[in-house]
């Protein structure tokens, strides 16, 4: 059996809150508490939960943007925290991130070419020097993957719609040909029809490139569609996990049941239809 692409073991993260009084220690908040999971290459793992449940903290820790208070993140067998900064930077080419809001995740003063080609700097550190033409070529390829073209290279983000911006953000994540993409609410800022386009695109890219997604969303229907396994986070703990089919049809934990019962009637009807 292949070694797992991503192994997260007993991951915990505490944040210090502002000190309330000189005489007492600063209060802390436990954002993540002993989270473990394994993600195989080519598969997708969904993370659901309310805001404050630790979803985005998990994304930042997996991306090694922050250090965990305890536990380990192993990507392709390597402990990300144990890597030297230069080695970590090179490994970053293999895991990239797509953020929620395409209006704030793209630099308005950079052209699409500059934005999309930026992660190539990671490859240069590995001793490969890319010429301007090569960078342009790679950027074009990544844009073609998401359905944009050469005419878009010199444009600025404000010239694009929300859906197109999210495509640009995905192209930026794809350009280093990563094996894992961490997507933090990638479609929640988009309209229904645009959301459908981006979700279809993400599925196509997964088939084409054998990508794995760590897919964070509060939308249970989106996670149901995109993921092979789901973990439910509450107060930083995994309260339930399983394949979406069983998890959403026979939720065991009261919190999962509450999430499902909060769905509008239309969604519950769809669920009932699917169960028949």
């Amino acid at each position: 059996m292949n070694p797992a692409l991503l192994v997260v073991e007993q991951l915990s993260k505490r944040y210090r809150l502002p000190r309330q009084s000189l005489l007492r220690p600063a209060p802390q908040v436990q954002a993540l508490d002993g989270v473990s999971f394994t993600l195989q290459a080519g598969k997708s793992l969904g993370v659901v939960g309310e805001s404050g449940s630790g979803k985005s903290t998990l994304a930042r820790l997996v991306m090694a943007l922050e250090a965990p208070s305890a536990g380990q993140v192993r990507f392709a067998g390597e402990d990300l925290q144990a890597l030297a900064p230069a080695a970590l930077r090179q490994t970053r080419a293999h895991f990239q991130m797509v953020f929620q809001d395409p209006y704030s995740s793209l630099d308005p003063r950079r052209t699409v070419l500059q934005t999309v080609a930026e992660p190539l700097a990671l490859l240069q550190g590995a001793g490969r020097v890319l010429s301007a033409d090569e960078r342009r070529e790679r950027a074009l390829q990544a844009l073609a993957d998401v359905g944009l073209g050469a005419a878009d290279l010199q444009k600025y983000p404000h010239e694009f719609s929300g859906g197109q911006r999210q495509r640009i953000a995905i192209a930026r994540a794809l350009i280093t040909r990563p094996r894992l993409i961490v997507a933090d609410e990638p479609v929640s800022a988009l309209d229904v029809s645009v959301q459908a386009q981006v979700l279809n695109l993400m599925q196509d890219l997964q088939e084409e490139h054998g990508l794995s997604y760590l897919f964070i969303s509060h939308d249970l229907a989106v996670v149901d569609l995109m993921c092979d396994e789901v973990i439910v986070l509450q107060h930083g703990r995994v309260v339930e996990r399983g394949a979406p089919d069983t998890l959403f049809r026979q939720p065991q934990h009261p919190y999962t049941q509450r999430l499902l019962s909060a769905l509008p009637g239309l969604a519950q009807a769809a669920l009932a239809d699917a169960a028949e």
Partner: protein
Amino acid sequence: MFRLCCRHGVSGDAIASAARGNRYRRRVSLLEVTDLRVTLNTARGPAEALRGVSFALERGQTLGLIGESGCGKSLTALALMGLLPNGAQVAGSIRLDGIELTTLAERDWCRLRGRRLAMVFQEPMTALNPLHTVGRQIAEPLRLHKSMSRSQARAEALRLLERVQMPQAATRLDAYPHQLSGGQRQRVVIAIALACGPDLLIADEPTTALDVTLQREVLDLIAGLVCEDGMGLLLISHDLGVMADRVARLLVMYGGTVVESGPTSEVFKHLAHPYTQGLFAARPRLGLPRHSRLATLAGRVPALADLPTGCPFADRCPRVADVCRAAPPPPVAVGAGGGPGLRPGLGHEARCVRLNWPVDHDGLPNASPSPAGTHAASRAPP
């Protein structure tokens, strides 16, 4: 016309007495919007952003406005509140209890806003002033419109906070917005909107910034309050699921027009307009098989200045024909809900001349962004 009325002005008392008079003469809808047109100044010259929107809303009723960004939902709400951006030109009529609002002077708008018309905004953090306590912000409309004393207004603010089920309301009165969670902030915004007992409550995406579980609580709260106070509710959302549960009548908007309107259950049953069908098909639903592809609409919402003269949806429509591009389609009755003899605006109608044209759903143009028009046009049924 606009200037003339501005100069004469209408005093708030005149509005109130006219309203009473009207109520005796004939049954006047709480809100009646007729052929509302709004023209905005854009970088590319004036563009018509609302193109003849008409609807009516009675006390105690709920009306939903659904559509994607840029279709004119929020602009409709802003027009109803008299909060359109500078330079916007309004034509058509908005009547509240028979009073024409489009020609009101700003001073008269101020007497209505917060008193008879109230709005709950999408983003509670930006709707609240970070420098004032929530108690003071809830008291503001009470002090302004009801001339309450400071202590009266504070007592009333506390009652309102309790009414919107704010935990520990008494201590929260002196809290600043940043000390509250998203759901609590939205409760404060609702309390402000309800302060003066408005006749019409406009809720513009009130739960988009909130979690699913909170979303339900807040919508339950609004529904309960609307029911108790007998207000009219105009709920704006892009979420079909929310609409199915919460409103009795639904308007589907696209390109500044209402493309389909009717009782919510009828609209969901028939999904008459191709745009409504597209919206419905594009929604990820629980229980879809893994890796199934979602149906998508070809192209994208055109910019305001580029809206076609005919049907605004023509360039993306799987059923498009030449007749669609010639002139804006008139409303056509759908199913049994829109039989003749019904007052316009009560039945189920869709603005589409090819309503009964067969269309296969799987054949909806797919995801790859194609130049709008060419792709869709080639799909017209023979």
